[in-house]
């Protein structure tokens, strides 16, 4: 066992970063930022996507090396150039994307990270330590289980245990509740409070105001790579004011769309889709989607959402069941045929399966209509028309930083998503499958995306919104269903749905 030195409850500053700047390839992501957390507190680091909050913590843990800036631990300036050095200084971070070897067991992952210096020489000792530490802090886990067989919440427990076994006294959690159901999130936040009470310094990176006000002692707000509010006690803090600090301006709340359901446009019956590893991704799922409605599918990520989206557009084959698009069976149809029927898609990772980063804006816009609109005699490309249409789309959708010739990769996340939307939300759209359409976007870009979806639905299209962001589901959908273990486990009209109700259904997830 490692003896954790417990400093005084109202101790001094545990970890401080001063005047930190960091550029990636000439783009400044941290600009003179600062941050400090004290012993025995839960400190929320608040900011929107792209504000630099993960980046500054990655500097603190040695994943990134800052261009300028000073890191202090317990008031002593310290140079941290790699994650292992951070760990030696008692800093541990639970990354948003877990850093666990999926094919290894829990004990093997612990043995990988914690060696003889933590008193672990073999797997048996690692397993014993997992059990001991787990029962000490209340995070039980089977040390012999393989990580790939664990649920997301369980993997998170392994990450936290790993950090604690390595002797971390400063614990950083990056958006820990993003992957959890409401109830699991609450229990995790309670756990972080317990950590702080035993003298740890806890940093909670988040963009959710609720977590700041309810579950942390102090808050630092970042915006555009700068620290805009530092070290502010959260007691009596106004959520609206915090939101203004985080976003920088007032954001109009989303208007609520009234459902006017028309004829069924997408009907799915008893659909089963296999995962790449052979297991069942989607398992006997049925749904019906009508024109003029947004069906929100809530659920913890990894419960078959990806397979459902892939199968609807035609990238994954269904092993059973049927899909009807505009009354025609399409379960065996090609992607092109489905697109011909007006099916459109916003994938969860826009540069993985939506846009081609190394092609130009004009080419990305044209690629779904090459065979018709952009072809001339004998299959030659109508490049002039591609350029003209691109120029028009850039103006209409106000895509900042884009010219028809510019490579799509050089656009910011929000503008790349606008580019994708301007291609997918076109006049032939009948059914839009939107999978986490605002992931990684800042508030203004989110608003644009949500507006575009609502406009197309108001004009008669149908939208299937798959998202693990509960707020997005609740604010946008006209009807809500919960997906768990590959099937829909409950359905409500939007006005009857609450985060608690949905959370209860999501509890039993994979």
């Amino acid at each position, binding site marked *: 066992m490692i003896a954790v030195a417990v400093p005084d409850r109202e101790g001094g500053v545990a970890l401080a970063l001063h005047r930190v700047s960091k550029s*990636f*390839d*000439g783009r400044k992501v941290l600009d003179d930022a600062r941050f400090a957390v004290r012993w025995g507190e839960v400190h929320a680091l608040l900011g929107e996507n792209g504000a630099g909050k993960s980046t500054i913590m990655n500097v603190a843990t040695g994943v990134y*090396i800052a261009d300028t800036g000073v890191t202090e631990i317990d008031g002593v300036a310290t*140079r941290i*150039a*790699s994650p292992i050095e951070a760990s030696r200084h008692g800093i541990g971070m639970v990354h948003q994307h877990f850093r666990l070897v999926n094919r290894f067991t829990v004990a093997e992952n612990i043995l990988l990270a914690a060696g003889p210096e933590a008193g672990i020489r073999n797997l048996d000792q690692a397993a014993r330590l997992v059990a001991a530490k787990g029962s000490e802090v209340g995070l039980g886990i089977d040390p012999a289980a393989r990580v790939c067989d664990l649920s997301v919440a369980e993997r998170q427990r392994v990450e936290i245990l790993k950090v604690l076994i390595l002797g971390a006294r400063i614990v950083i959690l990056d958006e820990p509740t993003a992957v959890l159901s409401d109830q699991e999130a609450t229990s995790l936040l309670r756990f972080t409070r317990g950590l702080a009470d035993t003298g740890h310094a806890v940093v909670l990176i988040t963009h959710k105001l609720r977590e700041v006000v309810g579950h942390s002692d102090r808050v630092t707000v970042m915006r555009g790579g700068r620290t805009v509010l530092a070290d502010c006690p959260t007691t009596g803090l106004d959520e609206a004011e915090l939101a203004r600090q985080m976003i920088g301006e007032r954001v109009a709340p989303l208007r609520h769309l009234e459902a006017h359901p028309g004829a069924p446009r997408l009907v799915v019956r008893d659909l089963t889709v296999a995962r790449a590893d052979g297991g069942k991704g989607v398992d006997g799922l049925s749904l019906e989607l009508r024109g003029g409605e947004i069906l929100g599918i809530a659920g913890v990520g990894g419960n078959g959402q990806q397979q459902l989206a892939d199968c609807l*557009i*035609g*990238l994954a084959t269904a092993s059973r069941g049927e899909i009807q698009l505009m009354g025609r069976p399409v379960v065996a149809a*090609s*992607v*092109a045929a*489905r*697109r011909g029927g007006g099916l459109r*898609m916003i*994938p969860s990772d826009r*540069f*993985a*399966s*939506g*846009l*081609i*980063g*190394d*092609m130009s804006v004009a*080419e990305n816009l044209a*690629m*779904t209509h*090459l*065979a018709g609109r*952009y*072809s001339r005699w*004998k*299959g*030659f*490309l109508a490049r002039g028309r591609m350029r003209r249409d691109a120029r028009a789309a850039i103006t209409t959708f106000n895509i900042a930083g884009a010219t028809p010739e510019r*490579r799509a*990769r*050089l656009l910011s996340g929000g503008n790349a998503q606008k580019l994708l939307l301007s291609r997918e939300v076109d006049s032939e759209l009948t059914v839009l499958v939107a999978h986490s359409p605002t992931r990684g976007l800042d508030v203004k870009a989110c608003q644009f995306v949500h507006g575009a979806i609502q406009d197309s639905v108001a004009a008669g299209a149908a939208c299937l919104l798959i998202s693990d962001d509960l707020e997005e589901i609740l604010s946008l959908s006209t009807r809500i269903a919960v997906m768990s273990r590959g099937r829909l486990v409950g359905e409500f009209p939007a006005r009857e749905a609450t985060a608690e109700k949905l959370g209860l259904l999501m509890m039993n997830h994979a």
Partner: protein
Amino acid sequence: MLDRIVLSRRQNIPWHLRSATFIAGLALGLGISCLILLAAGVSFDDIVDDLITQVFFTADGLAQTATQAAPLILVGLSSAASAKVRFWNIGLEGQVWWGAIAATWIGLDAPGWLPWRLPLLLLISAAAGAIWILLPLWLKLRYRVSEVVLTLLLTNVAFLSVQYLLFGRWKDPATGFPVSPMIDPAARLAQLGWGSVHAGLILAAVIAVMLWVLFDRTRFGFYAAAVGLNTDAALASGLPVVSAVTCCVLMSGALSGLAGGVIVAGTEYHLTTFIADNYTFSGITIAFLARFSPLGVVAAALAVSGMYTAGGTLKVFYSLSEATVVLIEGVILMSLLLARFFSLYRIDLTHWRAVR
């Protein structure tokens, strides 16, 4: 330890940096090659005189370089066509062998009206090359078996097929050497009256221009580029991914097969066990030098062909092995690959001194 060198990927590589690193890589490769030749006992004056002046600035040398360039252009195009859709065709040599076998067969045995012999020979040799890549293509598309090892292994099988024929059916009855009989004169490519340069060079150049138009100007070229850059996005946009890959890979096999046909019908007029030597490395080096552009392939093939001519001189006067050319190709390819590092990444060494 090495992680003190902080790297970040450049999102936008300015063209001058791209060209500068390319030229630096090429210079490094050529420099190392010179050192190797010096170490092998070639004097510096001879390197300049034999390898540059003789090869590029005398009529004979240039003619020989141009002659050898024809099949090299074709294998360079072959490598570029499959690289376009990210299919690793590392079996160019096998396809060249089968193209040569098919060409020899037509040249020796094909019946029928004489004027059809040459077009038939070229067509069949291209088809033979395409057939030879069919198995790896099918296994890759249908069962996701890696094409890297398969195409390589098939090269050895093709070479053994050549030996089987040359030590069997096509053995020279007079001498017993593994050399096939000469093909029918009607099946040979026309000489252009300049050294031994033949119509194959024109054929190769025309194909290069056609491929440039195909890849740069047409819908098919767009499909191929999209598949190569991001297959998932191409699939999700409804592009015909499988047919684009199939066409490009079959085209790659056909071009290598045609190279074999051009070697037999243009310069050798018979099949021997040496004619396809090292075409795999040459093809890949040419495609890489040309940055996979069909027109660039023509220039790169001429340069590599010059190396072959020079290699021939070295062989005669310094009794260096043919392997010298392979070594130089490897060195140049590696130098170009290494040099790219400096344009692909932004390198920050300021943290290096922090090592204890």
